[in-house]
């Protein structure tokens, strides 16, 4: 009875989480340009549309470039900071940890508005590269958190051994530290990448009038005319996110990243 109740509850939550996506997936295979569900006819042309229609293809490219660059920049900010906090005793440096976590904790509209006023004041408003920096700052929290976790998991005696044998900081970092934190580095990058791909408001407020990322394009399509391409893009995004997170789970310890103790729990 209890096992049944539990299963029922999980099915219910699962349905709630998947229902909108199922409908969207159904809409995406409509034959004609309509958002009907159940779909009328079957066609994958709306998926082809993402790559053949110039507007959607440009938006996809813009989003991908933005996500690749901003996640890289976010990691390059987070890595030296996390390393420094792990290697040195400097309590005041924790302020930068706090600054790294703040953008993501505050309501996003605040970071977005702050960056909008900043880029407008400095006269760079609308330049594509401002979006890269804006996203990097907004998502720096994710690699910072995963890397801090990774550093705290390093057994200091390993590093100590290397130091006793005469290795300097640079050698230790390359040969001992880096291999140990690579999984955390990769997952931090992946989190920032996926979220940047989906981010709307910061991109909209910084470069919304000069370029279109995919979320901006979907929002504009919502207001100025529905097409099933929106649905196919949504399905593509969900699958992309699922694949990336599955890869993290496959090659790293996802549950530990999310706060479980370690893998001894079977």
């Amino acid at each position: 009875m209890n096992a049944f109740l539990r299963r029922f509850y999980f099915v219910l939550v699962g349905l709630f989480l998947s229902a909108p996506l199922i409908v969207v997936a159904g809409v995406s295979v409509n034959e004609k340009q309509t958002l009907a569900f159940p779909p009328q006819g079957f066609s994958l042309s709306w998926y082809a549309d993402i790559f053949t229609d110039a507007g959607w293809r440009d938006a996809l490219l813009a989003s991908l470039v933005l996500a690749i660059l901003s996640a890289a920049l976010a990691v390059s900010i987070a890595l030296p900071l996390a390393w420094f906090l792990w290697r040195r005793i400097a309590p005041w440096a924790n302020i930068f940890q706090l600054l790294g976590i703040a953008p993501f904790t505050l309501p996003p509209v605040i970071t977005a508005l702050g960056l909008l006023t900043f880029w407008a004041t400095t006269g760079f408003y609308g330049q594509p590269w401002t979006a890269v920096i804006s996203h990097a700052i907004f998502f720096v929290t994710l690699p910072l958190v995963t890397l801090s976790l990774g550093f705290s998991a390093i057994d200091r005696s390993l590093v100590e051994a290397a130091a006793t044998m005469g290795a300097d900081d640079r050698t230790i970092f390359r040969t001992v530290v880096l291999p140990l934190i690579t999984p955390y580095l990769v997952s931090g990058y992946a989190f920032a990448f996926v979220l940047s791909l989906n981010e709307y408001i910061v991109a909209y407020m910084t470069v919304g009038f000069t370029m279109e990322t995919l979320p901006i394009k979907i929002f504009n399509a919502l207001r100025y005319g529905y097409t099933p391409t929106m649905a196919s893009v949504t399905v593509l995004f969900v699958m992309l996110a699922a694949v990336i997170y599955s890869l993290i789970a496959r090659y790293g310890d996802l549950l530990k990243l999310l706060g479980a103790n370690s893998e001894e729990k079977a």
Partner: protein
Amino acid sequence: MRREKPATLADYAPLAFPAIMLSVFFVIPFGTMIAVSFFQRQQGGFYTPAFVFDNYERFLSLFFAHVLGFSLMLAVMVAVCCVAIGVPFTYMLTRMSRRAQIAWMVALLSVLSLSEVIIGFAWSTLLSRTAGITNLLVAIGLMEKAVALSPGFPAVLTAMVYQALPYTILVLYPALVRLDPTLTEAARTLGASPLKAFFTVVLPALRTTILATLIMVFIFALGSYLLPQILGRPQHWTLSVLITDQAIYQSNMPFAAAMAVFLVLVTLGMVTLTLFAGRKREAAI
């Protein structure tokens, strides 16, 4: 390696890049925003440096009080719904096999990273007349004809719970996965049913966690800016929507900035409460 105090200037070198980036592109923009909130608005979307409280004075209107009240009420409702659904779910999830946990976590993370635009679009489709669930009810004969369930307050609330639920579960997960399983075992040995053990042992042990989670989900829900716009009517707009609207469409940056500063203050107040709850928890152990 032992942690050491930085001795020479060169020891500080790794800190330079992160410190510069965070100061220039977070601290200064934040400061700019606060400064703009005191600026004087000019006709035509411009503003000039000044030190006026006009933008803050506009808070004292009935309209603003209504929006603020609605935003807070909506965020509270989202937080309560999410925690009510999320606590039993996460508790049972932590008792499942590692494999099942990973599968659920991948699904939850995927939903969590969905753009608000996409969530809004998906729910507006699900609740629409042409493609919505009411068609399903018509098909099985429960309804006469399909109706549109959005825009409206239930649509906004449902979609926001959808958006915040994966976040709630991820916030609850670390605390619940570390919960001592012998606690419930003891209760079960003494004859309590699993349900009774959950309510009398697990829930009280998690009191402060639940409170902290409520506050975190509340802040998360306060930041939702698109769902009320896509799925609601203008009376369902929240503070976040209003800020975007003022900044982009009304070109009133000073007022938008003043509202944002106000939102920061509300959020900081909530974070302080969370930290306070956390400290109380540590003191209790």
